[in-house]
Structure formats: C-alpha cells, structure tokens
C-alpha cells in the first residue's frame, strides 16, 4: 500500500514536468507590466485575443509591482533573464537603450499606414529608440458647479488664461470660513474652505511651466541643463507662490502622483492641472461636474506630452516580440479597454488629423468626455499645435535628475522654506553632472 502511495506521489510531482515537455509548437514569449488587478485583467484579456488569433506566438504576462518595476527589470537583465517585451517607465527608456538592453526599433513602423506621432518618440542623440504606447498631455480641469456658484465664466477652450488671469480667477474662487477672498480685508489663510486652483507639482509636470515661461529644463539634444535660467526658476516660484503668497492653492510639500486627489478630486479645489489619462482613471469615479481647458499661459502656449513605452528587449525571440508589441500598441487592440475608457489618447496622427479618426474616439458615445467640440479643441488641436515631449524623451538620466535630485530639492520650495532661485542654484552643478553620467 505504502509503495503504491509513493509511486502515485512521485507521478503527481512529475506532472508539471510533463506539461512543460509537451509543448504546443508555438514560440512562448513573456510580456512584463505593472498595474493593479483590474489592469492585470485587461492585459490578460488583450493577450487572450492575441493568443487566440494566431498560432505561432503565445504571450505570457509577468506582473511586477509598479514601485519596483525598473529595478526588477535591471535584476532580470543582470541575470540575463529579461522578459521578451514589456512596459518601460518613461524615465528608464534612455537608461535601458544606452546600456544595450532595448532592441532596435528603427524599422518597427516602416511601411505602416499608422505612424506614431513625433511628440511621443524617444530619441537618443536624435535617433529614435522607442515609441510610447499612447499619447497623454497636460490640461486644466475645472469644477463647473464651483464656477457657477461664483458666477464666474468657465475657462475658454480656445483662449487659455494668462497666468495673471488664472491667479485672479483663482482668487475669486477661493474663500475662507467667513466667505472672504484672498486680498480682501479680514481674509484668514488659515481657515480656507475652498481653494481656487491647484497646479500639480509632481516633478515632471513642472517642466511645462518652464517652457510656458520661455525657458526649458534641458536643451533639445539632452546634453545641457538649462534649469538655472531666470525663466525656469521664475516658473517654479510662480507655482509655489499659488499656495505660499496668493493663498489660492492647497499646500502640497511632498508631491505624490495624486495631484487630482489633492486638487479637484478633494472636492474643495475648483481648478487642477493634470494629465489626460485622468479622464479615464479618475473622473468616472469622482462624481464631479467637470470641464476641461488648455493650461494657463505664462508667456508661450505649450503643453507636455508623455506616456510609457512598450518596448522589445534584446533576446532570442525579438522578432516574435516585435510582432506582439506592434499589435498590442495599435489603438484598435486596446480600443474598448483603454481608448474608449479615456485612459489612452491615440498615438497615431490619423486620430488627430482626420475627421473620421477624431469621430472614432472622441465622437464615440462610450468616450467618457461627452463634449465633442471642447474635446476637439483641448485634446486634439492642443496636442497637434502645442504639445512638446517631456524631458525624458530626449534627456538621459532623468531617473536621477527629475526623479531624485529635483524631487527632493523642490520640496523646500513648496514648503516655503527656501526660494526656487536659492535651491536651483545649489543643485545646478549636481544636475549638470548627472546628465552626463553613463
């Protein structure tokens, strides 16, 4: 009896081996991603479609926690165990490509009808090294009910506020317990019950204000650090002063990627700047009667565009991984789960330049933002005319500069302990050194 039991147990242990040995004649590749359970399910759904529509490639998902994502990929690279393809954080794209981890993408879209937009192409010294999976830009969200209550006209979708207008409107929308506005006699900044505006100070989102003020953080070839220019410094100070001097914004000293929650999502802030993915990820759950507009303008009208990349890593199954990534990042492959939910804006010009393309997503009744004409101006025209790539599309080592050095240093500006000029002057040599590190 015991012998029989032992044999059965041994066989049971060998079963998984049998399954492995069986094989299905297909090339198995791995796709790595970060995300929560819902996102994991939507990824699995997309993989099921791909695995079902052909019989050469079988893609298996590999879920890695967001916080440790890049580090985990580095560990895999050191162990020579990288997945075949996967999502890559914006700030890690040039780091991976410079160190020879990413496969060449130069002919990835050759001869294709739908070409990804220039704005979302990662370049190292001018050479394309990757394409984002979608397009996202920064816009202004506002709470219509708060504007109505203050008898304030809504922000225009055609003519953005100048910075001064933005501050003035924000003042009229800010009031304390006694109903007083900033600048009025007896206004108590300690007892504010509604704030007029919140400019998301999550580090990378601050770059757009330097551009708006006629400056920049880095030169376009990514070799020079320009953040110590008076324009760039002034733009940081102006944003900090919204809370510190004008008293129209909530204090947010230690930014997290939750600007919407600190701002308009808290229910006590009338206007907030943030990315367009919020249309899909946050607003459907917020129950706020909201509108959208272009960002206020300091000197020049501009917005930043960005989005993570789905990359192919060098390896044995590079060709198969290419095929999958090309399919996976096509708008149609994620049409219902990501585009029509408002999380992704399309990445191909076709969806911005042709009426047919625009109607397909913005005009679709499932799209969460229902006002087609406003959407056309704020999402489509704004992208086409004013979007500039965020710094990590062309500047190396943003995982050090924006994510570490600037992130930590700027907190003293947000708290009002030091001025932007003081802080930037101090860290400037460190930033210059960081962008030339291998």
């Amino acid at each position, binding site marked *: 009896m015991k012998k029989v039991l032992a044999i059965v147990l041994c066989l049971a242990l060998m079963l998984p081996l049998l399954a492995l040995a069986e094989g299905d004649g297909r090339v198995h590749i791995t796709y790595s991603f970060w995300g929560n359970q819902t996102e994991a399910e939507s990824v699995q759904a997309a993989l099921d479609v791909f695995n079902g529509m052909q019989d050469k490639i079988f893609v298996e998902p590999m879920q890695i926690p967001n916080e440790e994502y890049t580090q985990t990929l580095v560990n895999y690279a050191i162990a020579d165990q990288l997945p075949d393809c996967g999502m890559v954080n914006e700030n890690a794209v040039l*780091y991976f490509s410079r160190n020879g981890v990413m496969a060449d993408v130069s002919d990835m879209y050759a001869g294709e009808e739908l070409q990804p937009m220039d704005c979302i192409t990662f370049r190292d010294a001018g050479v394309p090294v990757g394409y984002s999976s979608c397009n996202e830009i920064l816009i202004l969200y506002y709470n219509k009910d708060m504007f109505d209550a203050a008898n304030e006209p809504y922000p225009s979708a055609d003519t953005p506020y100048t910075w001064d207008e933005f501050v003035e409107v924000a003042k009229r929308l800010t009031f304390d317990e006694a109903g007083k506005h900033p600048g009025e006699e007896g206004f108590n900044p300690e007892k504010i019950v509604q704030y007029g505006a919140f400019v998301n100070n999550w580090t990378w989102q601050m770059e757009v204000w330097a551009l708006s003020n006629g400056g920049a953080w880095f030169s376009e070839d990514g070799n020079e650090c320009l953040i110590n220019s008076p324009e760039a410094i002034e733009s940081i100070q102006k944003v900090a002063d919204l809370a510190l001097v004008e008293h129209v914004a*909530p204090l947010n000293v230690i930014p997290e990627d939750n600007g919407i929650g600190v701002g308009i999502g808290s229910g006590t802030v009338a206007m907030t700047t943030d990315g367009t993915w919020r249309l899909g990820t946050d607003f459907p759950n917020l129950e706020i009667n909201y509108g959208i507009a272009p960002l206020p303008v300091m000197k020049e009208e501009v917005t930043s565009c960005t989005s993570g990349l789905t990359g192919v890593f060098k390896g044995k199954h590079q060709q198969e991984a290419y095929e999958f990534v090309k399919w996976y990042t096509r708008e149609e492959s994620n049409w219902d789960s990501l585009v029509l939910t408002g999380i992704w804006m399309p990445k191909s010009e076709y969806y911005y330049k042709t009426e047919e393309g625009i109607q397909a997503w913005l005009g679709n009744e499932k799209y969460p933002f229902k006002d087609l004409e406003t959407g056309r101006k704020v999402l489509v025209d704004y992208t086409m005319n004013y979007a500039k790539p965020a710094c990590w599309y062309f500047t190396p080592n943003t995982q050090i500069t924006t994510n570490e050095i600037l992130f930590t240093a700027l907190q003293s500006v947000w*708290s009002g302990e030091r001025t932007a000029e003081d802080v930037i002057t101090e860290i400037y040599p460190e930033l210059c050194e960081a962008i030339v590190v291998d």
Partner: protein
Amino acid sequence: MTVPLKKKIRYNRAETRAAWILLLPSVIGLICITYLPMIASFTLSLFSWNGLGEMKFLRLENYTRLFTRDTKFYGSLLTTLEYAGISVAGSIVYSMIIALLLNRKIPARGFFRAVFYLPYVLPALAVYLGWKWLYDYNHGFFNYGIKLLGGSSVKFLDSSAMVTPSLACIAVWLSGNLIVIFLAGLQNVPRTYHEAAEIDGANAWQRFWGITIPCMTPIIFYNLLMSLVTNLQVITPALSLTKGGPGTGSYFMCYMLYTQAFKSHKYGYGSAIAVVLFLIIAVFTGILFGTSKSWIFYEGDDKA
C-alpha cells in the same frame, strides 16, 4: 596523560560534527544572505556601476565624493542621528512608563497590554498611511483639532524642522515590543528587595530609583541597543510618507542609500553609503558596549 586527552577529543569531534550539521542551515544562510553580500557591497563601493553597463574601478572616489562633494550627505547623517536620538530616548522612556503602569494591578490589565502592543503588530505601511492623515496639513485630524481650538495649522510633515520629530513620534508609538520586554523584566525584579526596603522605610520613589532601575539595567541595555540599531537604519517612514523631504528633512541614510542605488542606479555609490552607515552603527554599538560595564547591574555580580 595523552590517552584520555585523545579520547576526550574524539568524543568532542562527534559532538562537534552533530553541532555543525545542525548549525549548517543557519551558517549557510548567514554566509549567503549576510556575509557575502556585505563583502560584495564593500567591493562594489570601490566601483562605479549603473547595473547594466561596464564596471569602472574608482578606488576610494565614491567615499571622497560622499564626504567632500555630496551636498546631502551631512544633512542626511544629522537627520538620521536626530531621528535615532529622539526615537530611542522617546521609546525607552515611554515603554518604561507604560510597562510600569501595566505591571500594577489595574482592571482589564490583559486588554491594556494588548492595546499597547497592537501598534507593533500592525502592518507598517498601514500605520504610516494612517499617521499621514493625522498629520496632514490641509485636512489632517491634528490640525483640525488645533484649528478648532483656535490655533493655526502646524506643518507636521511639511517643514524640514518638524518632520523628523513628527516621524520619531510614530516610532515611539510603535514601540510595543519594548513594553513587553520591560514588563518581563519588571516581573523579575525580586519582591524581597522591595519588601526589605519597605521595612526600612523607603518610599515608592526611592524604591524605584534604588531597586527597580538597577535591577532593570540589563533589560534597558538590551532595549537601548536594539532600538538604536533599528532606528539608525530607519527607512520606512521616508519611503511611505515623506520621500525624504521636505528638502533633506527626512532624507535618512538608508533612504539615501536606497534612492542612490535602486532609483538612480548608482550601485557603487549606494554601496559606499551602506559601508559608511555600517561603520556608524558599529561605532555607536561599540560606545554602548564600552560604557555598559559602568552602569549595568547583574545580580550576583561582585561590584553590586
């Protein structure tokens, strides 16, 4: 003379072999998980390496840079020492007081013991997120209370001067394990000493200073050591609450090590910070051990 000695050795060998076999798993663990990484970390600290590219031998360049050119290092060091100082002193005093109270015959003693131990077993991240809400500047509970009483909002986590004490308060609140160890110690203080002192007419305060505290010094030493080593390696509050800020307000050395190595991918530099942190902890532990003989009382010790 030689024969029994040989016998003795053989007997010992068998015992030694058994000991080694039993110890093997933990020795292997210790070597692979602690000693080899320590050596690797020290070696790495002499190189520049971004994880994917070539390693470059730098000699002591990482250390020179850390001590002479890094604008955040000394701030980070002071912040860490400040945090460790406040939280070690705070948790020892707080745990001792709570342990003394819980050692009395109070009603529902078991319940209170559980309540004070509870923070220690809660998941760290949940604790810190809860405290984040308590400390929040705009909508936090503490500031709500302060404003209700007519005060003005305090920047608990949003000013570089307040952030370390605020975080240390959480560490003090979390020190339930020290309370348990103190309680165990208190129950070992011999009743007879107290009775003798009572007969001699000593009041409660004199008995506390003259009997309880001296009898507790070995436990205090243990708690002090553990608490110091843990708190010098602080990282969780910075990771979950403040991201090192504002400025370098909570840029603890462990957090600096973590961001340099695992966020900026400067593994050599991160390792150099790890080595320096190791030496700092070694120095403090050394000081503690060095002075221990002069203030620790062991029962049966001649000096007592």
